[in-house]
């Protein structure tokens, strides 16, 4: 394996047979509860009318975005983006607001709705299997995939591989690597024979989803200071004016009395 500077996955929808071995592998490796999962298979189902049919399968979990929206949104900073790719979550910080679920355009983080405060309700999502990738193993989902629909490696290498595969079979693939630029780039790259929107993937621009809100947040403190200053100024002005008016009035009164 080449040296991995940026851990990433490549998913090839043309190879995926919807067997769900990846889902089982992840559940076992990470000891996921029986009513949870970190991987989803979006069955595009069967399209068309007998006998002209088409079917596609999209397997996804956390995209380990280059600019993670979950991380941007989390008020207490429970998410971390490692320099080499993985986006991880720290349950010790989480307050359970579920804003990350709203923020993630892929609907990845999910919450323990079945836990009270004693059990502790947390967010769960794919961790990129650090216990494996930093010990020379592939992530559990990738390693088991019987058709190599899921592959693992360095993001640049995988991007090269993806483009090469598309170039070698232009009849077979759509000429696009989803995740190369979507949402500012993701570590989960997807190539497919059917349109990505039909695989259930959101149509995202190259700018990360959190761009606007992060810009607004940047302006918050300067704005607050400015606005506070304006209000203070107004208040002071009004006060001064009122005092003057009062004085004038009282002088007038005094004069009248005179």
């Amino acid at each position: 394996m080449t040296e991995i500077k940026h851990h990433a996955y490549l998913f090839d929808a043309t190879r995926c047979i919807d067997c769900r071995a990846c889902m089982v592998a992840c559940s076992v490796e990470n000891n996921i509860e029986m009513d949870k999962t970190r991987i989803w298979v979006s069955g595009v189902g069967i399209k068309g009318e007998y006998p002209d049919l088409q079917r596609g399968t999209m397997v996804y979990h956390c995209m380990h975005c280059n600019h993670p929206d979950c991380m941007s949104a989390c008020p207490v900073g429970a998410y971390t983006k490692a320099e080499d790719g993985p986006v991880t979550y720290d349950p010790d910080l989480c307050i359970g607001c579920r804003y990350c679920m709203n923020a993630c355009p892929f609907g990845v983080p999910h919450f323990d709705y079945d836990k009270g405060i004693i059990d502790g309700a947390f967010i769960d999502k794919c961790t990129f299997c650090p216990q494996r990738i930093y010990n020379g193993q592939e992530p559990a989902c990738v390693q088991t995939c019987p058709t190599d629909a899921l592959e693992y490696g360095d993001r640049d290498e995988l991007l090269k591989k993806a483009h090469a595969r598309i170039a070698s079979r232009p009849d077979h693939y759509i000429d696009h690597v989803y995740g190369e630029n979507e949402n500012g780039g993701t570590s989960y790259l997807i190539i497919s024979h059917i349109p990505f929107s039909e695989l259930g993937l959101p149509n995202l621009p190259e700018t990360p989803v959190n761009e606007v809100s992060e810009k607004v947040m940047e302006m918050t403190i300067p704005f607050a200071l400015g606005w506070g200053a304006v209000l203070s100024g107004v208040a002071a002005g009004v006060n001064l004016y009122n005092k003057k008016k009062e004085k004038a009035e009282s002088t007038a009164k005094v004069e009248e009395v005179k």
Partner: protein
Amino acid sequence: MTKTLSRRDFLKLGGATSAALAVGSLLPPKVAQAAREAGHLNADGDGFISSMCEMCVWRCGLIAKIVDGRVVKLDGNPDHPHSRGNLCPRGQSGLMNTYDPDRVLTPLIRVGKRGEGKFRKATWEEALDLVASKMTEIKNKYGAEAMVFSSTHNLSQPLFENLLYAFGSPNYGTQRSLCFNAMIVANLMTYGMEEPARIYDDKLKYILLTGRNLLEAISTSETHDLVMAIDRGAKVVYLDPRYTKTASKATEWLPIKPGNDLAFHLALLNVIIGEKLYNRTFVEKNTIGFDELKKEVSKYTPDWASPLTGIPAETITRIAHEFADATPHALAHNGWRTSNFVNSFHTQRAITILNAIMGNWGTTITTGAGEESGALGAPSQPPYPRISALRLDGVPWKYPVVPFKIGVFQEMRDNIVSGDPYEAHGWFISRQNPVMSLPDRGKTLKAFEKLDFIVTVDISLNDTAWFSDVVLPEASYLERYDPLVPIGDKVFLRQPVIEPQGEAKSALWIYKQLGERLGLGDFFQYADEDDYLRQQLEPTGISLEEIKSKGWVELKETSHAGESSELTWNTPSGKIELYSDTLAKVGFPGVPTWEEPPQPAEGQFYLLTGKVAQSTQFGTQNNQLLHKYSDDPRLWINAKTAANLGLADDDWVEVTSSVGMIHTRLQVTQAIRPDCLYMTPGYGHLSKGLTTAFGVGAADSAVHVTFTDPISGGQALSQTFVTIKKA
């Protein structure tokens, strides 16, 4: 409700059982000790051990991760040719079969009525004595043949066979006639071998799959091969009345009319022979009977086949041309569960012959590796007693070309019911669930009713065990040693990765114990599992320690079969038999011949069966991990058909055949022929001892009608016609 392990620590379950173990056996944990010695586990009992999957018969290599003496993860073994580092969903979830809270972990003896599910726990001593005494009683009273045996393919089967042949019974039922008899017998009649191996090399250009749903009925390495071939641009033509996941990846899907694959393949042969597209040198050199074949298939033109198959004549002709153009880098795949119709044997012969006359031999098919290797030894044993009784399953007196070890299981069951030619009195079942896997479940239960004694060896209280008198708990595949198995030049070891839970024992142990109690100790001349393996390794010069530490070893010297330039075949003529004299002599057509399959009457539908990737046969539906990731089993119906019948998605319906009726829910889909229905096998369990699976779905075997292919003895699993109405 099911006992769902919804908490995070489902893997910690069985803590209770290992506590029981600690009390029960005061010996030090053997597995951990051995694994520590072999360097797999550290002092804390953590580490990795290599073994083999047995969630299905493909037997992928696996590496188990052990923490605190518990297996917490299975990964594919990259060194194993069947897994190549991958495991399918069933293999991935295998530890959940082992840690299933429903596992049977002590011998059980029935106390209630049969089928009531009331058992009491017993010691091995008591249970084995009981089984041995019952078997001896039956043997003394009615003869050894009154005891029937059945088991599905597995690594300890040689020991099971030892037991029954030494006992002296000719009655041996295997899953094979429910599965691949058509294919195996066709290959034997043509090539003299059960199943040639397929080669998916870089040059493979064309693959013709006849109902081989490789992307759902998974064999990890071959599934991988097929997907990679598609990736490289190979053309895949797939025949199946259903739009399966394989169909969705195939270049071309032909929704053929069930039972008419024979017509399609005969027409291919017609075009290829008629237009002289076959490999003349190969045919002349290596085959016999070409002229008979040519004469027979000249009748079967694409125009003739078209109305039968529902495939346009031009398509058939085109595929014949394409296949010929791609030859020899073309593969006509036999399929696996090929026993679909009474004419399936001829279909299989036609496919086999297609490969032969194109000269694909050596390019896309070759001699199968097989599981027997001369290189391995075995404990010595006396010859088996001579058996003179007829076999209940009609081999060979009714099925003359069906090999003994393959048999005709459903016929055996039928003759237990009819008592003809003689009455059976006991049934010994291992690693099999005939209550579910045989067609016509009602009839199987009738056979059970007739018997005095039924014993089942299983890991769970499967439906067959539920109706048994004694249940013997085998250690699961992660808990035991099995005999070594060679694959190509390598020998692989199944070894325990954890201590057996409860009182479960390996088959090697169980059959030896039983053999000794039956006075057949000479047939089990090994002290324990280690000793058996050592005797197997003896001639190879490989030490047991070596194979234990690695999980497999390379055989030092192997004879390479393909090395001689002259090809020979193990047929009577020594050539590939396009025309088989063996068949002709016993009154069957010597070349593939059209045999009209029965058709559903007006208002009836074909009822199809077929695997899904998330379960194996009838034995994994109780696996909570697989249950979690499986689709709801529902009856598929074509959308137009449903509309015509006024049926809607999710409706409850009643499905009726000539032998039974079931209630199930509908799944309205485009993905099936309008004249077919489909059910996922393996649901509708009767055993309440399967708490996760019980109550889920319905059993197709309750409505399957028994029809046997007269030549291969295969059960025609698609030849059941049903009516459907709203429940």
